[in-house]
């Protein structure tokens, strides 16, 4: 589907992705009645019902005709919590292979485990003939990323990556207008995700440190570049319509010297083949700038946040509309140096208005996934979109750890440049 068609469908709440994306059954029934027969119930198994998994489960249960049919986790309290969310005695498993073997009624699997386990869980689910909603980052290593793409394509089942901002109405509106040239040529994107929070989860028992706080250790976590930065990388890929060709980076443990070996601040600069640059910064010891993506073009800027977005425009240059009386009154002279021109712009922008601005991107993303299954339609954020952000994360971390400049061509032979962006 062309992006423009996608937006129109979403705006109208009409057929396809749009219908269940926006208002779910409400819009579907008011604008395009669609009877969902009992046989159309989609049963989902969940591998990893931790905090992120639980959040997605709640969203999935807001979609008509979806049931959570199995839960799998090696940490028993998560299974109890998962059953509280489903409100049922959902069958539980402590081994994903058993869940895939024994839960015969599954149609799809949600994988929300730590990223080092994604490849095993996602490929096994696809191999079993199940559709997969996979949390980002898609793969932990380059090989993992390739294996998941291969499994998705071999299985003939749909894979959707958890880049929910691809489904956020204000992002889609911004991208549509950027592609139409509203801010000229985009040259730079600066993305921030700053927090003041040590990223440490409480432990009911100190022996569970590695288990619960897997984000803090390199053998289980790809760090801030993955957990936070991959969303920004995905947006940069979307804007530039390609994937990076090289990356340099830096990072350190600066704020929290508590035994972790995952950086609590990272900075990475991605260069794109067309000349564009994406600069990412994440630090978790200062909250001031929060989450921002500023997309800079020759004619203006788009500033996106987790809740909204706005357009800003550069002043006109070489303005020929000079008032005629200028020659009569002349110009003023003064000894003072004005700093005004170099002050940051602090005025308002032109807010992005969308007809469904009230939609929750996570809900839209999972609803679209179920539409893909029901209507046998490729997900918008598919395995290629997943690969395109996961590989830059892996190479970005290589650059950060080696403090070197990493050309992608040295490490990946077939970057998916021209496919899979929903074009």
């Amino acid at each position, binding site marked *: 589907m062309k992006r423009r068609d996608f937006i129109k469908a979403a705006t109208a709440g009409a057929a396809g992705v749009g219908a269940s994306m926006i*208002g779910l059954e*409400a819009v579907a029934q008011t604008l395009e009645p669609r009877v969902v027969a009992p046989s159309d119930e989609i049963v989902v198994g969940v591998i990893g019902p931790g905090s992120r998994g639980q959040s997605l489960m709640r969203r999935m249960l807001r979609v008509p005709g979806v049931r959570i049919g199995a839960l799998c986790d090696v940490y028993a309290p998560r299974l109890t919590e998962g059953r509280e969310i489903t409100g049922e005695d959902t069958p539980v498993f402590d081994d994903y292979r058993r869940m895939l073997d024994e839960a015969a009624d599954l149609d799809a699997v949600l994988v929300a485990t730590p990223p080092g386990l994604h490849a095993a869980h996602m490929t096994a689910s696809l191999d079993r003939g199940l559709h997969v909603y996979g949390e980002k980052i898609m793969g932990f290593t380059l090989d993992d990323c390739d294996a998941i793409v291969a499994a998705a394509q071999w299985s003939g089942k749909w894979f959707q990556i958890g880049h929910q901002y691809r489904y956020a109405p204000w992002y889609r509106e911004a991208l549509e207008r950027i592609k139409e040239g509203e801010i000229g040529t985009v040259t730079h994107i600066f993305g921030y995700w700053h927090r003041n929070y040590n990223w440490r*989860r409480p432990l009911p028992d100190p022996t569970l440190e590695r288990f619960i706080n897997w984000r803090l250790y390199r053998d289980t976590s790809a760090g801030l570049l993955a957990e936070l930065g991959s969303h920004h990388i995905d947006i940069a890929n979307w804007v530039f319509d390609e994937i990076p060709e090289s990356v340099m980076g830096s990072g350190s443990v600066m704020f929290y010297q508590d035994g972790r070996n995952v950086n609590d601040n990272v900075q990475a600069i991605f260069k794109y083949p067309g000349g564009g640059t994406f600069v990412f910064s994440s630090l978790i010891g200062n909250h001031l700038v929060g989450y921002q993506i500023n997309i800079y073009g020759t004619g203006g800027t788009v500033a996106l946040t987790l809740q909204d977005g706005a357009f800003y425009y550069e002043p006109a240059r070489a303005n020929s509309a000079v008032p005629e009386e200028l020659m009569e009154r002349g110009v003023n002279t003064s000894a003072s140096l004005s700093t005004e021109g170099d002050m940051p712009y602090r005025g308002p922008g032109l807010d992005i208005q969308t007809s469904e601005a*009230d939609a929750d991107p996570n809900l839209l993303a999972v609803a679209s996934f179920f539409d893909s299954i029901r209507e046998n339609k490729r997900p918008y954020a598919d395995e290629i979109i997943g690969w395109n952000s996961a590989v830059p994360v892996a190479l970005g971390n290589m650059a950060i750890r080696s403090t070197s400049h990493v050309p992608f061509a040295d490490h990946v032979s077939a970057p998916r440049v021209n496919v899979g962006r929903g074009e």
Partner: protein
Amino acid sequence: MLAGLLPAWAAVSLVWAAPDSLYYEARPAMGTTVEVYLYAAGAGRAEALFEAAFDEVERIEAAFSTYRPTSELSRINTYADATPVTTDPEVFALIDHALAYSRSTDGAFDITVGRLMKAWGFFRGQGRYPSREELLEARKKTGWAYVTLDSTARTVRFGKMGLQLDVGAIGKGYAIDQVARLLRAQGVEAALIGTGQSSYYAVGAPPGEAGWPVRVPAPFDHAQTLSTVYLRDAALSTSGNYEKFFELEGKQYCHIMDPRTGRPVEGMVQVTVIAPNAADSDALATSVFVLGIDAGATLLDEQAGTAALLVTGPKAQARVVSLGWPEEIAEGIQ
């Protein structure tokens, strides 16, 4: 916000000697301030616990806030008058629980009361007297009996146009309960969680103490204490007519609506309820405030582990009424 309902122990907390230390954090959330006091072994653990606690508050606010257009409740409000809206079990259960209160109070508790609140100017405002037309229009769009739940399909449907759900009178308590659950699951044995000083839930008790002391202020002079409750594994909520009100021609109109009449409740000044959990103490405080003494007493009789302390007005004839109140009540206080 109830400025007078303060944890009485705050100033003397250092006296308690315990292996764990007492930590405190407050953050703005749910249109008020959420505060958490807890005992933990070290600031690092306390920090992680606070983060998890406030994440939970944020999760619940993101689902239930009517101030957020992206919330699940806002989605229901947008679509449920056109078609049944499927929602997740948690959201469904809280709406179901609220409607059960509507049934048991014959509509004195009503989560569709938002339109009336707006008509009386209490939505983000301090209140005003509505015109007859405004009131009529608001009453047309109010009524818990027009909310239909289908527990099999897990759907919410409105039976008349313009209905809006607002779980503010039970949702803050629910959030407190969920935070308490989370802290317990993390092994916390003593904590006090509060919202805007109007509701508290106590997990256990401070080491060596009978409970977490919570002071119920005298409604006309918050510096005076009407009663002090030692809360342990229980919740307490207070509703007062002094939280938000306006005066017109010498008469005071408070922000607590009687959905049955479409007008602010008159004659009740302050109601404090103790219950096993904060969702119930929250809902009961509002219900009893609207129902009054006799019907309120009947309602509390139906629910184990509840008690209430009421102050009726007006000020000149203020009367303190105990409905099974377990603690000492100061005499001669107004």
